[in-house]
């Protein structure tokens, strides 16, 4: 099974500035509107900041939930593709997504899902390009697991080393 990269946001680095949202809507639609952003900033006062975007689930609930069969997981990069002709705006996918990563255009009534800026004129995902804290990155599940393991071991060893002194 091919491993696809998806957007990962580090909550320790995220400052909640919303630049990712603003630039996302701008590069996709030529206008600024966070409601049309494919990445969403979440702030829980006072300390929690993160942004959430499509996680490219292996067996996506959104695709399974769509009664119009308008959603399809791309073989190429794992993105969830929206067939705008089929999408009826029923929002079943929005309810099904465990991350709240899908939104609906206030203008077309069609759903909007992160396409890693494939449909724009830019090569790199623009949220990553604009993030002032390098909090957003592209990762595969293997890389995420790898980094988590390294973090955990570092933490554990620091505790062990500190305890042995």
């Amino acid at each position, binding site marked *: 099974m091919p491993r696809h990269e998806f957007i990962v946001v580090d909550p320790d680095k995220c*400052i*909640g*500035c*919303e*630049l990712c949202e*603003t*630039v996302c*809507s*701008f*590069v996709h*639609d*030529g*206008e*600024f*509107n*966070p*409601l*049309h952003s494919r990445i969403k900033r979440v*702030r829980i*006062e*006072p*300390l929690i*900041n993160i942004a959430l975007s499509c996680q490219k689930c292996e067996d996506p609930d959104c695709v399974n939930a769509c009664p119009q069969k308008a959603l399809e997981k791309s073989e190429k990069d794992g993105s969830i593709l929206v067939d705008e002709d089929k999408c009826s705006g029923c929002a079943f996918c929005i309810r099904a997504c465990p991350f709240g990563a899908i939104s609906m255009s*206030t*203008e077309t009534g069609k759903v909007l899902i992160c396409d890693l800026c494939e449909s724009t004129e830019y090569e790199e995902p623009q949220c990553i*390009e*604009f993030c*002032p*804290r390098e909090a957003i990155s592209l990762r595969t599940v293997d890389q995420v697991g790898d980094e988590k393991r390294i973090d955990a071991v570092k933490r554990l060893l620091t505790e062990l080393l500190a305890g042995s002194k």
Partner: protein
Amino acid sequence: MTLEGYTQERVNIHLDTGKIEKGSITEEFCTNWIGGYGFGAKVLWDELKPGTDPLSPDNILVWAIGPYPGTFLPTSSKYGLFAKSPLTGLFGLSISSGSIAQQARRAGHNLIVFYGKAEEPVYIMFDDGDIQILPCKEIDLWGKGAWTSDEILKEHFHDSRLSVAAIGPAGEKLSKIGCVTNDRNRQAGRTGMGCVMGSKNLKALCFRGTKSIKVADPKKFYVLGKDFVKRAIGTATAKYRDYGTPSGLASYNDMGMLGNYNFREGYFDKMDKFTGQWLDENLVVKKVACSQCPIACDHLAKVPKDHPLWAGAVGSMDIENIYSLGSNCGHDDWYAIIKAITLCDDLGMDTISAGTTVAFAMECFEKGIIKKEDVGYDLSFGDGEAVVKMIEEMGNRSSKIGDILSDGSRAAAKKLGGDAMKYSMQVKGLEFPMFDIRGMSCFAVGASVSIRGACHLRNGAYGLDAKGKFDRFTYDKPLERGKAIKVVEDEYGVIDSLIICKFTRGIYADKQDHCDIYKAVTGYDMTPKKLMLDGEAIHNLAKCFNIREGATKADDYPPERFFTEAPTRGPAKGVTLKKAGYTKVLEGYYEARGWDKEGVPTDETLKRLGLDFVIGKLKGGKK
């Protein structure tokens, strides 16, 4: 003709009748007055009757933004509030950031003007173009803290992203230092705009905008805007990101400029842990940003969970509130500072005025003007817990002394009588920011000519002293100093109108940079010359507002203490301001501005700035 960037819509809200009128503003109005400060100055000059009691229904409250909110231009999400200030009796001006401006801009708003007083406490929901004046009683909002109000309103409208600007109990109870809080840690803090909202029975403004925003030249905007985002994470803003504004505690203290013990001193005696670095390494748990800001100067510090009094309190740390609630009250108790900041923000009081007013009270306590039986405890310098207690009593007006102090140090000094006024550290009624000006001969003038009262943000003249542009202990080259202050002041007039954050002032290489981004957003071919002339005209109009309200040259002088009492330690030891020298620089500034020796703009200057409509109207008001 239409401009992008601006919605060119003006809304008048008559709180007494509930009538809401929508009109438009012209392209000329937008490009001459730019937004924010400029809009506020023009509306108040044109419409506020001279001599109006700031707390009467006749006062006018202006909410305004410029052309940038909603775009990703760094620090573009800023709004301003303007009214006759109940604290100073003069031009009231307060600017805040957070989410409000971009949300309001998407809702279609550019300029909102509030008239009259609502019969009962209300809040207003701006749901795109739909505007509803709603009673507080239905959701039990009146009496709540600004933070709780924010939570209640977000839940009521089922929208975690709803933008809420609210007053707390301080504003409701007409504390003259009442502020407006939004996004928890952002305040339109100074000059009592929360008090004006309270006097209008106006508890909160809620904004929800769903409309997309266009700019005139999207391709150009992308290139320029991205470059500014990159510059905003470069060296020009490093200090705001790393240790934040508290990094200045050590550096300004080293120059003897850090106000402490109610400005008896400028060199603090408790600096071991009283630095930005110590704070950052020990207590800051998170750095967060306003909408569209790459800097994240909002450094959140937390009181540890085992603290007996204030466990878990999370406060937004800034050099100004650390000075006012800390060193100026003679203590270095970080936990007390954090707690006092949270109280000010939630109760809705300006941290600078509140802390400096407590410092004033501590000196009055020391001198026996305020007695222990009046307070119930020792209100002594050095006691952080006493600061926290008094802030709570001021915000709620819940004790005799708290009630008196709730209106700021000048009003309190009048009530307390005796020598109290000697200890009120303010200009025009607005309490001093952090700087001890005795060894700052440029900023002494800069802070004192500020149209809203003692302030570091109307002109950055402290930089002229701190960076050694002029000898900070002498008064030579008065006209050159005056010109230098004028240039920064005009530039800040532009920045406060656009409105962008002063922390990004260093990312613009020159005025052309400002014009380029202004054109990309609005489509209007702005020139550096016109932009600076606009800034100068805006500042002059606000000055004329003050003169019309009765302000004189005497209002452009700092407190006597700075002329008569010298610090006993630090680099400014033994130094006081000299009145003759000060007056020379003050008059140099007047001359640089094209004002007469009394600080009144000449007809020639008014004509040059396109302010002909002011001529002949500078008399007749009373303070």
